[in-house]
């Protein structure tokens, strides 16, 4: 009885009694969720356009951040370092297409998935060989002061991140829906063979989509790096982005955003109100269990395409 009360009544009482605190937790969660969404976006882009479940997205985030920091340490001004990093990410896209995707075309999904895990190891080793493995602070001039908003403690940095996320999504939406390249991308996502038969160059599309994913990874890398320093653990946020993906659906950009927000809030609320009851540090698995429960009701995620199977 005591136990049930602690689990099912007390947390809600606490929420009711201190609504301001709850609001703060929720807002915090939303802002963390934005950061998850940034990583998840890259996954969705690549999965949509090439059907590849790109496990290397997380390490691409790390790689971009490492490159940026490494260049800045060499004395390169911020704007130039940003452009150079972008160039590196596009070069990476070319290399991936040439050396990995092209020879593996038409292989089963699982083989491609394993290849991206191999790429993960490769990039991890490569980035750290080039730039070293110690924690590096990243400062690109994002404000990070805290301020008081009607009794809520907010951080400028988080709001900035939310703004960046929104801008990125808006930019991607325009790119996908209004430009010829975007239309070609959507065509490829819909049906590879049909797209090829009307003359859309598949390889170019892959390069473009991996480049875009690389640049999204760079943005995510800058935000995460500025928040918690550039270090190896950055590549592990990929693991945090996966439940976001299954919650939102592998093929949906809005799904990645909303999934990220749900996971962010759910995880923070659970950690603060229920975490102490079971010993804390539940953030690591809570997102997965939440996503799993969700999948029982909607196997294709919130916004994923309906899975129709025929014999």
């Amino acid at each position, binding site marked *: 009885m005591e136990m049930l009360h602690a689990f099912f009544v007390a947390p809600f009482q606490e929420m009711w009694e201190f609504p301001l605190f709850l609001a703060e937790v929720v807002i915090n969660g939303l802002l963390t969720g934005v950061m998850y969404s940034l990583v998840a976006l890259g996954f969705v882009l690549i999965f949509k356009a090439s059907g590849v479940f790109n496990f290397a997205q997380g390490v691409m985030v790390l790689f971009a951040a490492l490159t940026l920091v490494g260049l800045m340490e060499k004395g390169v001004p911020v704007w130039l370092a940003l452009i150079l990093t972008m160039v590196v990410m596009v070069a990476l896209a070319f290399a991936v297409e040439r050396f990995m995707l092209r020879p593996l075309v038409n292989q089963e999904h699982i083989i491609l998935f394993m290849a991206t895990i191999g790429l993960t190891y*490769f990039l991890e080793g490569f980035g750290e060989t080039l730039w070293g493995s110690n924690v590096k602070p990243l400062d690109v001039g994002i404000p990070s002061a805290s301020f008081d908003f009607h009794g809520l403690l907010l951080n400028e940095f988080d709001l900035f991140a939310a703004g960046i996320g929104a801008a990125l999504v808006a930019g991607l939406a325009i790119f996908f829906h209004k430009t010829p390249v975007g239309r070609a991308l959507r065509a490829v996502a819909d049906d590879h063979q049909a797209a090829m038969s009307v003359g859309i160059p598949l390889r170019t599309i892959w390069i473009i989509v991996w480049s875009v994913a690389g640049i999204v990874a760079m943005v995510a890398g800058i935000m995460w790096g500025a928040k918690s320093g550039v270090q190896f653990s950055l590549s592990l946020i990929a693991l945090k982005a996966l439940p976001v993906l299954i919650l939102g659906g592998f093929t949906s950009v809005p799904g990645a955003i909303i999934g990220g927000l749900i996971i962010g809030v759910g995880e923070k609320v659970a950690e603060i109100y229920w975490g102490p009851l079971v010993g804390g540090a539940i953030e690591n698995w809570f997102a997965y269990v939440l996503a799993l429960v969700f999948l029982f009701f909607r196997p294709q995620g919130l916004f994923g395409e309906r899975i129709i199977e025929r014999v």
Partner: protein
Amino acid sequence: MLYREAGQFKTSYAGDQAIFPIIQDRWFVLAVLLVAYLVVPFVANDYFFEVVLIPFLVFSMAAIGLNLLLGYAGQLSLGTGAFMGLGAFMSYKLLTTFPDLNLIVAFLLAGLATAVVGLLFGIPSLRIKGFYLAVSTLAAQFLLGWMFTKVEWFYNYNPSGTILTPPREMFGVLITSPKADPAVKYLVALTLVAVFALAAKNIVRSRIGRSWMAIRDMDIAAEIIGFRPMQTKLMAFAVSSFYCGVAGAMLLCLDLDAAEGAEAFGINISFNVLFMVIIGGLGSILGSFLGAAFITLVPVVLTNAPQMFGIAMATDMQKHLEVMIFGGLIVYFLIVEPHGLARLWQIAKEKLRIWPFPY
């Protein structure tokens, strides 16, 4: 010429359904086993046992387990590391709670406990498939990993959170604990793996194995012709987890001797076992062995290579290069032979059949 089935007539159904229908295969397997039992223990040194042979055997076991699930039943799981961890912790609990328990029985019970948990985490497979399922099995990985550090019952409430294998004997010979002779550990591991590989080979040729393959090839069609997807999938998860659990118990008792929860059985283990299955060959027991050999050997070779060539290198630099080369090799391998080492073996056999007169 050497490898030719011409002239080997089967005169009974038993002969036709034998596990190795060709006489050369039978001799080959027998020879490998004889070498493994009679030659290797006298030739290998302790380093070789501890770094190469025992991990190879342990991970072959895990790879067979995952191969049953992924290669035969078509269900992708990324929770292997956690299931191995569960097997390890259960064997530890059993050995410390019941000091008189036979070691082998403890392994089997640990496997059974893992099978039950694997069954639970297999339930989502009834609703979801493909990568959605893969990601949801990560829930098992992280939930169990968290329990290994937070639930003190698992490590007998000791403050450090690590588990140490208690010394246990069988037939008067010390088998577990760091003091035991590596050769003895190797022989125990070898026996277990041989028996379980034989069992796996037979499972996949039986009704159960065929129903797994039907579900793998197309589950809706299989359901329509009368296979029960629920029983079949859950059975696959249970059997696979059983193998992984035993492998985990072996990893703790015969290889590591001491382990610390989330560290030793993290997601890297899951990926490594997955690599073994893919590189070895999906849907092939032999492939599990080949893949396990490849993935255990490559890091050992990479670690020792710089000294062999006399290249001095900073340790962390070397570590990074190792990771990088490992990743590169995997991508390379997938490109060259996406069907795995088992496929190479098959090609070699076809070549051998007509060798040395190919026309």
